[in-house]
C-alpha cells in the first residue's frame, strides 16, 4: 500500500480538461515501472489521495511513463496543478493487459470513446511497432466535441505515416470541424470488418461500450473476439478493498481488460 515516488518531468494539456503527466524516477530504475499496454497505476497526490489511471505511453519507451488524466474531482484536480519537478506517489502497474500476443495475426479494430483512448494508446504504439504481425488495423474514435478529442496531432501523424485506418467522429461539432458528427458506433461500416479475422478492443464510457459491442456483434464478431476495459471504484488495486467487484471478478486483478465472453452474462445487468 506504500507508494513509490516519481517526479513530474512534464505536464501538458491535451484538451481543456485532460492533461498528460510524464513521470520519471530518480530513486528507482525506470525498468521497475515496466508495464504492459492496458495496465494502470495508482497515482497519489500528496495529502489528497489516489486515483487509478491507465498508462498511456509507449511500453517500449524506457525512460519515462505517461498518464493522460481527465480532471474530474479532488485527486485529478490536484494532479492537474502539478508543475515540472513536483513529486507524486505511484503504485503499480496493476491489472490485466490487452491481449496483444494472443491477437497477433488478426485484423484489429479499436473502438474508443473520450478518455478511453488513453488506455488504448500503448496498444496502438505496440501494434504500429509490430505492424507486420497484425492484419488490417482500424481505429474508430469518438469524442464529445472536436475540442475534447485526445491526441489529435498524433492521430493525424499515425494516419499519415502508418498503415492504420483511423475514423473519428464527434457528438457535437464546431465551426472548424470538417469531420463526421454522431456517435462512434456509426463509424463501424468504415471498418469493413471481416468477422472471422477480426479482434476488437473497446474502451470508453460503459454505455458507449455497450453499443459498440452490439454493433461488433451485429457485424459478426463473436463475444470472445471482443475485449473491453472496465472502470469501477478502486481503493487498493490489490484485491482487498472489495470496491471494484464486478460479479465474480475484481476489476483490479482480473481486469480492467476483460474478454467480453467472460462478462457477457452480467454486462447488461443493471446496477450489478
Amino acid at each position, binding site marked *: *500500500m506504500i507508494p513509490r515516488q516519481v517526479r513530474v518531468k512534464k505536464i501538458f494539456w491535451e484538451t481543456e480538461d485532460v492533461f498528460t503527466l510524464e513521470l520519471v524516477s530518480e530513486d528507482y530504475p525506470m525498468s521497475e515501472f515496466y508495464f504492459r499496454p492496458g495496465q494502470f497505476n495508482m497515482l497519489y497526490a500528496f495529502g489528497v489521495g489516489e486515483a487509478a489511471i491507465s498508462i498511456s505511453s509507449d511500453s517500449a519507451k524506457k525512460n519515462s511513463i505517461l498518464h493522460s488524466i481527465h480532471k*474530474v474531482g479532488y485527486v485529478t484536480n490536484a494532479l492537474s496543478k502539478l508543475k515540472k519537478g513536483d513529486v507524486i506517489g505511484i503504485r503499480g502497474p496493476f491489472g490485466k493487459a490487452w491481449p496483444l500476443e494472443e491477437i497477433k495475426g488478426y485484423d484489429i479494430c479499436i473502438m474508443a470513446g473520450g478518455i478511453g483512448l488513453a488506455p488504448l494508446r500503448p496498444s496502438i504504439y505496440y501494434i504500429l511497432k509490430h505492424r507486420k504481425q497484425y492484419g488490417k488495423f482500424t481505429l474508430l474514435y469518438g469524442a464529445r466535441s472536436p475540442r475534447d478529442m485526445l491526441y489529435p496531432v498524433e492521430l493525424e501523424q499515425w494516419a499519415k505515416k502508418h498503415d492504420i485506418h483511423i475514423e473519428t467522429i464527434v457528438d457535437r461539432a464546431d465551426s472548424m470541424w470538417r469531420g463526421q458528427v454522431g456517435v462512434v458506433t456509426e463509424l463501424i461500416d468504415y471498418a469493413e470488418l471481416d468477422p472471422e479475422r477480426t479482434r476488437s478492443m473497446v474502451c470508453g464510457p460503459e454505455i458507449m461500450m455497450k453499443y459498440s459491442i452490439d454493433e461488433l456483434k451485429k457485424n459478426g464478431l463473436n463475444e470472445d473476439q471482443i475485449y473491453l476495459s472496465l472502470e469501477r471504484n478502486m481503493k487498493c488495486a490489490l484485491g482487498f478493498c472489495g*470496491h471494484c467487484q464486478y*460479479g465474480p471478478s475484481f476489476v483490479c486483478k482480473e481486469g480492467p481488460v476483460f474478454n467480453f465472453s467472460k462478462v457477457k452474462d452480467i454486462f447488461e445487468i443493471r446496477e450489478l
Partner: protein
Amino acid sequence: MKTISKDSLDKIIGYLKYKGYKVIGPSVRDGAIIYDEISCIEDLPAGWGDEQEAGHYRLRKRNDGALFGYAAGPQSWKKFLFPGKLKLWEAEKNSKGFEITPANGQFPKYAFIGVRSCELHAVFIQDKVFNNGMFSDTYYNKIRKNIFIAAVNCAEAGKTCFCVSMKTGPKAEEGYDIALTEIINQDEHYFVVDEGTPKGSELMEQIESLTSTEEQLAAADDALKNAESNMGRTLETDGIKSLLYKNHANTVWDQIAKRCLSCANCTMVCPTCFCSNVEDVTDLSGDHTERWRTWDSCFNLDYSKVAGGNFRTSIKARYRQWMTHKLASWIDQFGISGCVGCGRCITWCPVGIDITKEVSNIRKSLKN
C-alpha cells in the same frame, strides 16, 4: 484427548499471558457477549446464555454456570485481525518531495479463547481474502501468524445459527491450537481438550490434566450432537451459485428492498466481510498527511461511486450484491462460500432480514 477441570482454564489464560499473549475472550458488556481482553476466568460470561431471533438479542441467565453457553455475539474476531480503523502510513513533505513512513506497526500477539467452529472457518476465509494469490495484506498476515487459538465446540446452537448447512460446524475440525468441549453435569464441570498443534501441546504440558475417559468423550460427543440437532436455521446450498446468478431480476429483491435499511449492520457484524475504504487526512499546514484504512460496506452508497456516477444507487442492487457475493460470487473468487452460517447478520439486522429465509423465498418464487 485430555480432560481438565474448569479452573484449569484459568491456568491456561495465565500461561498464555505469561507467554506474552494478549488474551482475548468473551465477556458480558451492555447486554451482550462481546470479545475483549480478559485477564482471568472471572471475566468470562459464567452462567450467561442468549436468546436470538431475527433482529432480536437478549442475554439469558443459565442455571448451570457454563462459561461458553452462548451462541455467536455481535462481534467477531475479525476486529483484531482486520481492525475497523488502521493507520497504514504517514508522510511528511520535504525538500525532495515527501517521505513516507509505514505506520510503525504494532502487531500484538493475540490468544483467542472461545473461537467457535464457524468463526474458525471465517478466519480461514479471510486468510484467502488477504492472501489472494497476487497480493497479501501485511497487517493481517503479521497478526495472523502469531495468534493462539483456543476453539470451543458448540454444545448448543443459537436460534439464528446454520453452520450445519454451511458445513462449518458445530465441531471445530482443524486450525486450532487447542479445542475445548465444555461439559457440565450434576456434579462436574470440566473440559475435554483436543490438542491441534505443537503449540497447543506445549501449553497443555503446563496444565494439570487427565486422559479423558470413554464417558467423558461420549459426553463431548453428545454435546456436539445436541448442537447439531438444534440448529436454529437451515440454508439450502445446492446449486446456490447458479440460483443467485440466474435470479438477478427476481422480484424477491424488490421485496427485500422495501425492508432493507442499507444501514450496513449485517456487513459490519459478518465475520468474513472484508471491504475497506481509505481516507487521506492532512494537518492544517498540509505538510503532514496520514492514510487510514477503515471498514466499508457494499451497503454504503459511496462505495460504488465513480466520477461519472454510481453503479449501485438502489438499495435493491446493494442487497443483491451483498447476498450474491456472500453465497455465490465468493465461491468464484475464493473457491469457498463467504457465509459460515453464524447467523449474526440475521440477529443484528434492525429489521430482521434473514438471509436463509430470503434464499428460500427465491427458491419458492421459482416454484410458483
